[in-house]
């Protein structure tokens, strides 16, 4: 299993942060596990925003998921059902 390219991940995170700042929100990297799961945490205005799952799907995953070694992106505090995840998959494509 390829190792997560952390330098590239952090570079992408910076861009996502800049974009979310536009809405007074942001995101921070919480952890990167050996199996390629990246956990992020929404901060600022994103922390209490009900659209977090949409932002996770349409923006965060879209911009981070093809970083080498990343197998899954989860957001702490975004607790939704697999059915809702499925509905949101590919949003913005």
């Amino acid at each position, binding site marked *: 299993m390829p190792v997560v390219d952390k330098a590239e991940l952090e*570079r*992408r995170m*910076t*861009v*996502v942060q*800049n*974009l*979310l*700042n*536009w*809405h*007074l929100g942001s995101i921070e990297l919480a952890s990167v596990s050996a199996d390629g799961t990246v956990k992020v945490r929404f901060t*600022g*205005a994103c922390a*209490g*925003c*009900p*659209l977090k*799952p*949409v*932002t996770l*799907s*349409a*923006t965060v995953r*879209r*911009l981070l998921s093809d970083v080498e070694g990343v197998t899954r992106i989860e957001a702490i505090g975004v607790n*939704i059902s697999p059915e*809702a995840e499925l*509905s*949101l998959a*590919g*949003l*913005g*494509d």
Partner: protein
Amino acid sequence: MINDALVFDSTLHLADLSAEGLENAITDKAEMDATVELTNRLVGGIGNLDLVNYRSDDGTYTLPPEFGGTIDAMYSWAFENAPMDMALVGNAPVIPTGAILRSPQKYLGFIREFRKAHPERLLFGGGTDPSGQLGGTPTPGTLKDSLESIELQITEFGADSIKFYPVGWRCDDEEFAYPLYEKTRSLGVKVIQFHKNLPTLRENVESQGPHDLQQVSRDFPDMTILLHHPLQLYFFETVSIAQRNPNIYLVCTPLIQYSLYRPRLAQELFGHLLHEVGSEKLIWGSEGVLVGNPTKILDAFEKLEIPQDLREGYGFPQFTEQDKANILGATLATVFGIDVEAKKKELAGLPAGR
């Protein structure tokens, strides 16, 4: 257009997301290039500028000739890749001291150019945060700043509406808040909007209640008030206020987005709104561009029905075609005095790409 209904987005936070547009936020070239590449994925085509070519020795950027390409990309995003016909674009706090956007003038310039290119489709929803608390700006905005910003946005950039973000101030404060509405009205703009029911940062939740709009509604009966975000927080208060005050309308974001991934909740909340407020006071919004293209959300809303158990158990009415048409655009068109049928004909007669 969806089922012959005009689709008029009330909350399109459209802006120049290229590195050029974010010039003050990004100073590192590698970061800029990454932004260009990644924003391109979000909105398509917007990031095709090699901005380093437009950087002066002093580190500032001049507007590249390809700026028009950015406008084209945003046009495609909203009106070609999504079934939208019109949009109220903007709705972000724009204050001279700079809070949410590092370069308010550039943002306003982008909106102005975009409107100039597509005047049939776009209105500009300006905004201001007189508290200066949003974004933690180091130089807090003031009432004076906000009054100047309102004047600038209306007189120089043609704002059709001004949105307020009440953080740390009450909307019915006659000394602090009323001058904002009076200034707006004195410049010929009679649609004002309020961010409510959705705390932005760590302000007290009760400051986000809609209660203080009741007095505003009574004291400014000739103005139209768009109350954003009828959600779980203060939902029934919001319903009651919209029900009884003829000049208050509800902007149903992110409720419309719930149609896609929280459909049962959308059914329940829309059921209450249809039953107690009526679709002629309900308005949708995409909240684009950062939450993605709204096509899937609009598809989900088009299919959304009030199920039998909610009709039987709560007495909610079923959505009618007219309800959907109102929410998708007719209500907002009415707010801005736009004749829906005439607008549909006008847009149908435009050449491709307009």
